[in-house]
């Protein structure tokens, strides 16, 4: 089946776009790294686990059911081809259009190329974690990671978990783990009630979200989870694995209050400080990126590169509902543009209004949830800040102080921070904070490592375009 549109990412944005475009006659190939659709938000238990009540792990289940049924319908009708377990490493502009390069197979070594006239980048986001002493110990993982393990494999970390950091993800993670039988020793959130009070008006403008938050809190109380607002984790303890964390209350300036530090025994720390967008594919294509905020798009979700659209977290962190709205608009825009007509935005006016409101809401949340202002002071020189290359905070500070590095690129060149396997995706915010310079979006022409023999071979069109 020839492809008009390649959608990269089968989360809410990619699904909404695929369905909207396919419903308007566009032949879609949906390329995704996971074994089944859903993305991070609607990550589904693996088929072999035979889960009959996956909804117990999720909320907004009805929305998911609608997406799933829509996708299945279009797949059955031959309008959508869903390539699962396909890891996209590059999108190439050629003289005839765009080619999506992916790796498939159990070891991700089989090259697949999908040629398309249009590409939608719905690559989602990943969690930001700022460093602190002990954060490299086994047993410390991202809040989203703990959730992904639970939703995808029905396996939970350890017996006693602390959920910590900041952001709207912590509540559902703590509730989800508690519901699955894990003892959640504490929920440590650096934002405090006064941060919410400051934005009360804007938060109340999204009553659904407020109700959602209240429900989570009620459930946590039911599971007897201790909630510690305006607190932070100072250190994780243990030799070869996590044994406890030290938490402390924060003063109004965002510094730990003397005398408030206390130790909480735990075998797992699920920690996160908000989300970052995946922008590498867009960056390599030459799309404009707005700093660390995401891929820049217009009202139709078009990037500034012809034929390339973007939607969802990749264009700025805003949650699943916003991703659905953006994906839907992108799908309709693509359908119109591919048939050579300008779309009429009045047709999606309602969705556009919802998109605008959700974007305002996420801006408000950014103001509420913030890591402690002086978090970098807690990172001692011996703390590893770049996990891959094991670069310590002291080395970063030396590059700045002794060698005069004043920007992230120079810090990276002089210390190797950000040059390892993850290509700076994890360490960039931490290294920038410790160095005292502005963070920049992680960039790499290869969104994933590529075997050299795959790179060396000119790809066959092994994708759905081949037949």
């Amino acid at each position: 089946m020839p492809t008009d549109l390649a959608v990269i990412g089968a989360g809410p944005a990619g699904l909404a776009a695929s369905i909207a475009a396919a419903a308007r006659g566009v032949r879609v190939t949906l390329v995704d790294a996971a074994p089944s659709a859903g993305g991070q938000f609607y990550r589904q238990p693996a088929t072999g686990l035979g889960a009959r009540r996956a909804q117990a792990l999720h909320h907004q289940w009805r929305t998911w059911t609608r997406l799933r049924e829509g996708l299945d319908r279009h797949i059955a009708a031959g309008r959508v081809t869903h390539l699962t377990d396909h890891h996209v490493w590059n999108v190439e502009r050629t003289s005839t259009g765009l080619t999506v390069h992916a790796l498939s197979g159990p070891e991700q070594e089989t090259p697949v190329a999908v040629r398309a006239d249009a590409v939608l980048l719905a690559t989602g986001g990943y969690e930001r974690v700022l460093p602190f002493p002990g954060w490299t110990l086994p047993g410390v993982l991202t809040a989203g990671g703990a959730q992904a393990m639970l939703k995808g494999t029905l396996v939970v970390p350890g017996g006693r978990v602390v959920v910590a950091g900041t952001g709207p993800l912590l509540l559902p993670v703590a509730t989800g783990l508690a519901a699955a039988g894990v003892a959640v020793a504490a929920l440590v959130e650096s934002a405090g009630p006064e941060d919410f009070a400051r934005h009360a008006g804007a938060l109340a403008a999204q009553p659904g979200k407020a109700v959602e938050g209240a429900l989570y809190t009620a459930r946590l109380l039911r599971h007897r989870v201790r909630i510690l607002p305006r607190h932070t984790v100072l250190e994780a303890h243990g030799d070869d694995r996590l044994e406890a964390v030290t938490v402390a209350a924060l003063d109004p300036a965002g510094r730990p209050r003397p005398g408030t530090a206390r130790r909480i025994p735990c075998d797992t720390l699920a920690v996160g400080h908000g989300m970052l967008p995946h922008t590498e594919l867009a960056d390599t294509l030459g799309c404009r990126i707005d700093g660390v905020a995401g891929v820049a798009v217009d009202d139709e979700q078009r990037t500034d590169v012809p034929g390339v659209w973007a939607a969802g977290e990749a264009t700025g962190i805003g949650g699943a509902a916003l991703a659905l709205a953006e994906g839907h608009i992108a799908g309709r825009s693509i359908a119109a543009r591919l048939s050579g007509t300008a779309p009429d935005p009045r047709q999606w006016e309602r969705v556009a209004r919802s998109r605008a409101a959700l974007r305002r809401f996420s801006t408000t949340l950014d103001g509420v949830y913030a890591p402690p202002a002086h978090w970098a002071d807690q990172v001692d020189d011996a703390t590893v800040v770049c996990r891959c290359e094991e670069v310590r905070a002291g080395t970063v500070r030396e590059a700045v102080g002794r060698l005069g590095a004043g920007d992230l690129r120079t810090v990276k060149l002089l210390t190797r921070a950000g040059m390892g396997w993850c290509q700076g995706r994890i360490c960039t915010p931490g290294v920038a904070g410790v160095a005292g310079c502005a963070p920049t979006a992680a960039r790499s022409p290869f969104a994933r490592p590529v075997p050299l023999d795959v790179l060396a071979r000119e790809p066959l069109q092994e994708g759905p375009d081949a037949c």
Partner: protein
Amino acid sequence: MVGAACALYAARAGLDVALVDRGPVAGGTTGAGEGNLLVSDKEPGPELELALLSLRLWDELADELGPAVEYEPKGGVVVASAPEGLAALEGLAAEQRAAGVEAVDVPANRLRDLEPHLAPGLTGGVLYPQDRQVMPALAAAHLVRASRARLLTGRTVTGVLRTRQGAVRGVRTDRGDVHAPAVVNAAGTWSGEVAALAGVTLPVLPRRGFVLVTEPLPPRVRHKVYAADYVADVASDSAALQTSPVVEGTAAGPVLIGASRERVGFDRSFSLPVARALAAGATRLFPFLEQVRAMRTYLGFRPYMPDHLPAVGPDPRAPGLYHACGHEGAGIGLSTGTGHLIAQILGGGRPELDLTPFRPERFEQEAV
């Protein structure tokens, strides 16, 4: 890198030095280089003499800074895959030996003693024990630090100040003037623009190169290893894409794979065809790399001069202006010699090498 070396040697000659850069230290081509200190790829002539001088100075600096700049006297191995290539390579090696280079012919059956993972079927090669490697960004930063020069980064030179008689008396920057009776243009690929500010022309053009970086590996590639056709590519004047495999390990673990050359202006966009060509070349030389993953690429712009020689020395068209630029892909290696020679002439002495081939005004004269 060249600016850092000029600052170091000038400061050590007793001069008061200010180092001005519109970006950070190593922000231009230095930060995108592999850090090659090579004699192997140079034909006998003025560039090779500069390389030999530079190498001696690098060895001295290594005593001071070695580990901090990841200095590795690893040697280079050039291999040929066909008899004609080998004959040309051995011919070049013989000439280089006559010019003072250590070059050892290696028969095909001994290549794997040097590099156990090399592909079978190569016809032979030459070992160049003097080839070395350094981590270029660290080298530049440590040379700047050792020079104790006043470091003015993030300042763009917007003009060259002249006296009424026409002599250079400093530079204007976007953040104030810097006064000095001597100005050294070490702006690399952007040196033509700085020269233009002084009203003189210097034909420096960007020649783009990509480097592929693999996942970290144990030491498997011991030397800098490259195919004999690399020398021909370096010497070529073509603007079209050329790639010849250059493979080397690094102290940090990843293997670096070069080298591509193309003249496409300052286009920073990634090119998958170039990455494919580099991967194909490297896996032909080292088949074990087929299973190894590439993690990233980076690119840089070599300062290309029409005759492949740098501009080093005073500019008679603008008294007080000196050039130290246009080293193409050899700037890291040639930086020490260049800095040393510049310091000698700034101090009023006689330079150790004849600078005639490097005269910055040579192209103008040819045009006339």
